[in-house]
């Protein structure tokens, strides 16, 4: 029985639209503004059909069109030097940017958000977040090789946090583990500002040979357009349901989930099947189906190509045969891809599909009309210039202004505040403070989460969380590889959006350099509140300006990313949270530097100097204070520190390195000791005197541009000479005491590693079981 023959729709054809200009369409329910609907009518020269309205409404949404941020995002493309461009093979605008790794290898990576679905339905929201970003990577012609997931949830003790935590972590694990992609890192931050708006960001990285790079465009007259993978269902159709008026089928299933449902097995098969297509050069262009589904894929492929496209919508294989044309166009069913195949490759394409038992259907072909034509049983229901759908959406210059409260916020420093009344100063008090810090929700061990992710699969994971960066070997012969780190600090960015975004970049850059890799490229996921709030819009504008300035200064380009707006509950936005991912390169991952020391007797050095910077710190956060100035940004120093850490790795001068960031020196010393269960004896008086700070400040300040390293005795002279020659501040603060079983801060306290471990690792199991 043919699925379409039993369907009865009021099909709104282009012909019909032309003669019925006064039909009322539910454009407002679909999220379009009056001026936007007027624009659609102007572009078409008539009212849109129901199907066209569905396409424009979803493609002109904030999520797909970047209409509020576009004017600002432009800076990422403008503040770029020729030097920064030299390794960029594909820039912003494609599914993901591509960077040259050398030896004929290329790497592509991108970070995206799946925030609101993960609040509504944490398991599927987080799972399909992984699925979507992985398909972006496949679309470039790459084999995905790893994933990462920066997470931000509400207060750790809030009853709803456990729901989101269990669901999102299980979803990321359940989906990612089934794809055979190691999860190599991420972040976990708890803060009540994310209670009603958790942030679930997902990063994927893939590698390919240069000749395998694929782009999303439909070119070549007569080439075939094919949809393959999962069938199209009613999940994730969101607003399209208001177009149900086009259906008068009373047997239609009434409630379908707004959140997409993932099928990781289908995705795994899709990955292998696509790689087989790439290997045989069987596709001319390829595009994954994510947000806006077929609307997005057809309009983007067609507008990026050199002609037009004509497809028959009834050829789409359906999971739910009652779907209307508008719903089919908007469906966000997962695990689908669209490709353009030349006629001579059709048979080979079908053989690859059959081998992997993947369903496919030929929808139409590339034309030379410059139009995107979509038909329903032969009748034209969409006839548009695809550029007007995919690229020429509305662009808004949203008003923004520095919030009135910003000055008062910045004036409210932690030092001297009520919350700072009982700052620890005794030996006993300092030890208790260290234990409290490392057991705190944001600084505690994340093993409870990462132990639910497969970090080994693929056999190329050279480092993974909790090391500073995840490291993946790309070429098994030479050891060529990549390092990745993601970072953001919402509190810093709330205090100072321009510098906060730069601090996120600084930390990710520092983490990559700490692992020994040379930073090369940036991807960012900008999580903010409503752009219609001038305060939030100012935060967004400042963050983008800050980030793009800093990328220019550090010499690493932004190759892609994502903007997630409207993250707020009522009128209360989240902290502005620009999550920055930095990708670095290793000639040979064998020289990567792990974060924990192991060899007894090695010297521990502190690189950089410490100032009294407690505003926005984890310590201030623990005391319930947020105000003052974010830590000072010093990109020149970050660059110098990076060069030292990279050289030290290359020349074998250090065996361990850990950057100092949230939680400062206290957190770093504990983490480096616990990593391999090897203790240390440190003396801090001298360096405190040098920097003119007290011991508490030295331990808890979050001054940037610092790291601790462990240096074999035989390398100490060379290491010191290198730092001296570069005039970079360095201080020998202690030695590794592998058998001592304690972190001994001389003259102050001795903390047994067992006690530190219990504090550090007990927190998440206590809250989440």
């Amino acid at each position, binding site marked *: 029985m043919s699925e379409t023959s039993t369907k009865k729709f009021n099909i709104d054809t282009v012909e019909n639209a032309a003669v019925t200009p006064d039909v009322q369409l539910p454009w407002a329910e679909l999220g379009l503004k009056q001026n936007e609907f007027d624009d659609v009518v102007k572009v078409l020269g008539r009212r849109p059909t129901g199907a066209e309205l569905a396409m424009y409404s979803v493609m002109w949404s904030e999520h797909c069109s970047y209409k509020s941020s576009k004017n600002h995002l432009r800076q990422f493309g403008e503040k770029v030097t020729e030097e920064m461009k030299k390794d960029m093979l594909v820039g912003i605008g494609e599914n993901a940017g591509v960077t040259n790794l050398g030896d004929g290898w290329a790497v592509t990576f991108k970070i995206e958000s799946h925030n609101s679905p993960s609040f509504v339905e944490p398991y599927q929201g987080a799972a399909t977040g992984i699925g979507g970003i992985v398909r972006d990577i496949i679309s470039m012609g790459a084999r995905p090789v790893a994933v990462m997931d920066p997470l931000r949830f509400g207060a750790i003790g809030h009853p709803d946090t456990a729901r989101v935590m269990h669901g999102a972590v299980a979803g990321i694990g359940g989906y990612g583990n089934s794809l055979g992609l190691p999860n190599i890192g991420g972040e976990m931050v708890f803060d009540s500002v994310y209670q009603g708006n958790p942030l679930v960001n997902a990063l994927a990285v893939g590698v390919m040979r240069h000749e395998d790079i694929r782009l999303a465009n439909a070119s070549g007259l007569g080439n075939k357009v094919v949809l393959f993978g999962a069938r199209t269902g009613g999940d994730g159709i969101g607003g399209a349901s208001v177009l149900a008026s086009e259906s008068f089928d009373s047997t239609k299933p009434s409630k379908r989930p707004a959140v997409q449902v993932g099928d990781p097995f289908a995705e795994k098969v899709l990955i292998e099947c696509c790689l087989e297509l790439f290997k045989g050069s069987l596709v001319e262009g390829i595009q994954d189906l994510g947000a806006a589904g077929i609307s997005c894929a057809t309009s983007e492929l067609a507008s990026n190509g050199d002609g037009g496209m004509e497809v028959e919508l009834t050829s789409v294989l359906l999971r739910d045969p009652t779907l209307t044309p508008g719903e089919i166009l908007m469906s966000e069913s997962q695990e689908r891809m669209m490709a353009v195949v030349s006629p001579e490759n059709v048979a080979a394409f079908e053989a690859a599909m059959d081998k992997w038992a993947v369903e496919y259907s030929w929808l139409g072909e590339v034309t030379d009309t410059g139009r995107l034509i979509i038909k329903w049983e032969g009748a034209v229901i969409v006839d548009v210039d695809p550029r007007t759908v995919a690229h020429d959406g509305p662009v808004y210059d949203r008003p923004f202004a520095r919030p009135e409260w910003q000055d008062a916020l910045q004036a409210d420093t932690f030092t001297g505040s009520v919350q700072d009344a009982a700052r620890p100063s005794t030996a006993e008090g300092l030890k208790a403070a260290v234990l409290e810090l490392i057991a705190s929700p944001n600084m505690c061990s994340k093993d409870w989460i990462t132990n639910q992710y497969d970090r080994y699969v693929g*056999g190329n994971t050279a480092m993974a969380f909790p090391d500073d960066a995840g490291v993946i070997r790309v070429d098994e012969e030479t050891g060529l590889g990549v390092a990745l780190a993601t970072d953001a600090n919402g509190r810093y960015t709330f205090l100072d959006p321009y510098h906060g975004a730069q601090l996120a970049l600084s930390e990710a850059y520092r983490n990559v350099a700490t692992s020994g890799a040379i930073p090369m490229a940036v991807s960012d996921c900008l999580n903010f509140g409503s752009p219609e709030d001038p305060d939030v819009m100012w935060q967004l504008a400042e963050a983008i300006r800050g980030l793009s300035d800093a990328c220019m200064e550090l010499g690493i380009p932004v190759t892609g990313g994502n903007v997630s707006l409207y993250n707020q509950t009522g009128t209360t936005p989240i902290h502005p949270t620009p999550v920055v991912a930095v990708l670095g390169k290793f000639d040979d991952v*064998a020289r990567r530097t792990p974060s924990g020391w192991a060899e007894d007797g090695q010297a521990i050095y502190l690189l950089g100097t410490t100032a009294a910077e407690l505003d926005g710190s984890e310590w201030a956060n623990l005391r319930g204070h947020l105000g003052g100035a974010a830590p000072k940004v010093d990109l020149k120093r970050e660059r110098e520190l990076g060069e030292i850490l990279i050289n030290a790795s290359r020349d074998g001068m250090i065996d361990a390195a850990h950057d100092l960031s949230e939680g400062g020196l206290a957190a770093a010393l504990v983490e480096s000791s616990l990593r391999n269960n090897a203790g240390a004896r440190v003396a801090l008086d001298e360096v405190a005197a040098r920097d003119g700070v007290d011991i508490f400040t030295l331990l808890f300040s979050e001054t940037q541009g610092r790291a601790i390293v462990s240096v074999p005795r035989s390398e100490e002279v060379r290491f010191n000479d290198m730092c001296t020659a570069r005039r970079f501040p360095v201080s020998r603060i202690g030695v590794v005491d592998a058998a001592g079983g304690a972190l001994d801060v001389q003259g102050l306290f001795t903390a047994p590693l067992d006690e530190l471990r219990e504090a550090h690792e007990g927190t998440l199991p206590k809250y989440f079981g």
Partner: protein
Amino acid sequence: MTETPLIGGATLAPVDARLAGARIGVVTFPGTLDDRDAIRAVRVSGATAVELWHADSGLGGVDAVIIPGGFSYGDYLRAGAISRFAPLMSTIIKAATGAASSNPLPVLGICNGFQILTEAHLLPGSMIKNDHLKFLCRDQVLRVENNTTAWTNAYSAGQDITVPLKNQDGQYIADEKTLDALEAEGRVAFRYVGGNPNGSRRDIAGISNAAGNVVGLMPHPEHAVEAGYGPGHTGTDGLGFFTSVLNTLLGGN
């Protein structure tokens, strides 16, 4: 400077010229994940890896077979329940039970491969969801209880080895009679040490058939064959599985 490279380099086992002639098949099902890792482990051991496809029925003349880990067919039904019916499995079952020759085919099932072997009744018992109901990935210490099988003879009896464990359905169960028989016949090949990670009966991590040619276990030895990519940045304790089978094939055991 650290004397030995932290990663790579000195990880290859001494290669006997005869070893390269040994051909070890690695099966891929839809949803298999650790096939490339098993292939690498075979190569590191000095033998030649041969890719096998589930839908074929011929073994291509391989000397032994590894069924690697993953989520074949998504594990949406019982883990391994669909894969067990693949054409290639019929051939493997025949070859492993000696029906086709007097030298039964050595077969190693890792994780999902172990689950497939129990579904195929080459090994007794079954795996259910971990008792804590979560996916668990960690470095796991195993005790080698039987070092006389085709896949364990490179170890000493009672030796502790560390290899990664990573699964959702890893809890080994069987009825008491089967468990008693496994113990009595020395067919418990590996036991978890330092804490049972999933509630497996009698801490059982892996078992063998009576002839010792078929071995299945939940942990992943193929992820502990190259220093730098396994447990603790240096662990290569899993390599013994792959050298064991070469000993067997070369008549050393």
